C-alpha cells in the first residue's frame, strides 16, 4: 500500500490575534505560529497506520518555502518514508487550481494506491486541491472521509454528511481521499523524533523543473483578481459582562437562575 499524502504548513488561527495590513491586501503573519495543517495531520496519521497494517511506503509532499520543511519533517517523524517539497517560488497568489497543477506534475509519475489530502486548510479553507488533483489524475475519489476499510483491492470510505449521518462509498484503487478531522488520533512526535527525521533527505523541485508556466500558476493562473481583507467587528451581538471574575460570575449566575438553571 503506497500512499502519497499532501500536507501544508498552516497558521494556528484559534487563539491567534490576527491583523490585516493597511491596504487590506494581506494578513500580517509575523506573530502567527505555523504548524502542519490540522486536517493534514490526520491524513498523515492514516497513511502511516495503513502502511503499518499493509506494508508499503508513505511519501509526503508540500508546496511551500524552506520553513515548510518543518511539516515534512513532522510527517517523516510520524512515519512517512520520503518527502518532496515543491518550492513555492512562482506559486505565490496561486489559487487551488494552480496548487493542484503543481502537485499533479509531481505525483503523475509516482506509483501509489492512495493519495490523501486534508479536507481543507485552517487559513483560506477553500477545500479544493484534493478533488482537483483527483480530476487531473482521472481517479475515483471521496471527500470528508471519517473512516476507511480496505479489502480485496477495494476501499470502503465513510464520508461525513450532515446531522450525524454518514455515507458508505466503495472505491477501486488507486483513489484519492480528502481526510476529515476525527478519523484517528494523530500520534505525538517528540522534538527528538523530528531531529531524527532530519537524517532523511527532502527532495526539492520547483515550477521550472515541473514544466509549469506562468499562465498555469501564480497570479496569472488564478481565478481571483484581487482581495480586500478586513477584521469583522467583534462581539457585535453579545453584551459583554465586565468586572472581576466574582462579579461576572454573579451576573452569569443570575442569568442562569432566570433561565431556570437549578439543581
Amino acid at each position, binding site marked *: 500500500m503506497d500512499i502519497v499524502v499532501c500536507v501544508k504548513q498552516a497558521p494556528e488561527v484559534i487563539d491567534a490575534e490576527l491583523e490585516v495590513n493597511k491596504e487590506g491586501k494581506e494578513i500580517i503573519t509575523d506573530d502567527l505560529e505555523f504548524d502542519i495543517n490540522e486536517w493534514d495531520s490526520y491524513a498523515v496519521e492514516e497513511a502511516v497506520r495503513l502502511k503499518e497494517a499493509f506494508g508499503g511506503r508513505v511519501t509526503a509532499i508540500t508546496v511551500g518555502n524552506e520553513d515548510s520543511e518543518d511539516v515534512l519533517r513532522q510527517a517523516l517523524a510520524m512515519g512517512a518514508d520520503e518527502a518532496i517539497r515543491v518550492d513555492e517560488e512562482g506559486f505565490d497568489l496561486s489559487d487551488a487550481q494552480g496548487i493542484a497543477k503543481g502537485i499533479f506534475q509531481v505525483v503523475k509519475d509516482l506509483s501509489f494506491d492512495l493519495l490523501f489530502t486534508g479536507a481543507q486548510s485552517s487559513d*483560506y479553507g477553500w477545500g479544493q486541491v484534493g478533488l482537483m488533483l483527483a480530476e487531473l489524475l482521472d481517479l475515483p475519489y471521496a471527500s470528508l472521509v471519517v473512516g476507511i476499510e480496505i479489502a480485496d483491492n477495494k476501499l470502503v470510505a465513510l*464520508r461525513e454528511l450532515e446531522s*450525524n449521518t454518514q455515507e458508505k462509498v466503495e472505491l477501486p484503487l488507486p483513489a484519492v481521499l480528502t481526510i476529515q478531522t476525527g478519523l484517528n488520533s494523530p500520534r505525538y512526535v517528540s522534538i527528538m523524533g523530528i531531529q531524527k527525521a532530519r537524517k532523511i533527505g527532502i527532495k526539492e523541485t520547483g515550477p521550472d523543473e515541473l514544466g509549469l508556466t506562468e499562465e498555469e500558476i501564480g497570479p496569472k493562473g488564478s481565478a481571483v483578481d484581487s482581495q480586500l481583507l478586513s477584521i*469583522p467587528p467583534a462581539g457585535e451581538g*453579545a453584551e459583554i459582562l465586565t468586572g472581576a471574575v466574582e462579579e461576572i460570575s*454573579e451576573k452569569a449566575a443570575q442569568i442562569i437562575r432566570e433561565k431556570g*438553571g437549578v439543581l
Partner: protein
Amino acid sequence: MTGEILVLAEQRGGELRDITFEMLTSANKLGNEHGLAVTGLFLGHGSSDLARKLTHACDTVLVMEDPELANYNADHYLIAMDQVIKDRKPFLTMVGNTSMGMDIVPALAARLSLPLATDCVEVSIAEGRLEILRQIYGGKINAKLTMKPSDQYLISLRTGSFDAEAEQGKSGSLETVPTPSWTKLRGRKFLTYLEAALEDVDIGSADILVSIGRGIGKPENILLAQEFADSIGATLSCSRPVADEQWLPKSRQVGTSGKTVRPRLYIALGISGAYQHQAGMKNSDTIIAVNTDPKAPIFNIAHYGIVADMFEVMQKLTEKFVEK
C-alpha cells in the same frame, strides 16, 4: 446581462435540503438585479414531486431522472453536470457548500476549467464580474474577492447564508433533460447511509446545555465541566474538537455534522464558534459564551459574553450553585 444562474438542487432521503432554497433565494436576488434567469437542476430518480416544489422559486426546472441518480454519487453527478453546463453555459453555477457540493464542485471546476469560489457567504456581480465574500482564518477575517472576468463561474454557497424560501413568486416550467450515457465512470459506488448510533443522551431535548470546546484542554477537565453542568441541572455537550479527540461521544456534538439544538439556555465554554458550530446552536433562546479571546466569533451570536478563563468562571459558578 443575459444568461442564467444554474442552481443544483440537493435532496437526500426523499427530501429537498434547506440549502436548495437558500441558494435559490440568493440566485433570485442576483437574477432580479442583473436580469439573469434562475434555473434549478434536479437530479434524481422517481421523485418528480420534489422537482415540482422547485418551480415556485425558479424560472425553469431541469429534471434529469435516472436510477443511477437515486442517491448522490460523484461519478454520475460530475458527468450530468458537465453535460448540462456545457449545453447551457450558465453565467453562474451554484452548489451548496455541503457534504455533497464540496464533493463535486472542485472536480467539476477542474474538468471544465472554470473559475471556482467555494464556501461563499455573499455573492454579487459588478461590471460583469463575480464578487464574493468569504470568511477565512476560522471566521476571524472577512475576504472580499473580485474574480477575474469570465463568461462562466462556479461557486459553492455556505449553508445558512440566506433564508430558505420555498415560495419566491415564480411559477417555472419543468423541463426534462436527457440522461447522459454513463461512460468514463471511475467505479465509485454508493453503498448506504448510516444514521447516528444509539445515543447515551439526547442533547436535542435538553433545556439547558453546558457545551465545551477546544478550551477544555485535556480529557481530565471534562469532569469539571460535568460537575458544573450537574450543579445547574444541565446536560453536557461539545463542539467538534472535543468529539474528534473522543473526549465525549459524537452524539454530544453540536453543529452541522452533529446535532442542531435549541435549548432555553446554551452556555458555550472555550468554544471559538466556527460557523459549523454556530449553525447548530444559534437559535438557542439565550446564549452565554465564555472565551479568553475577545475576537472569538462565538461572541457575534452570543447574548452574553464573558472574556475570561473558562475554568475560573466554571469554578465560581459551580460553587454558587452547589452551595444552595
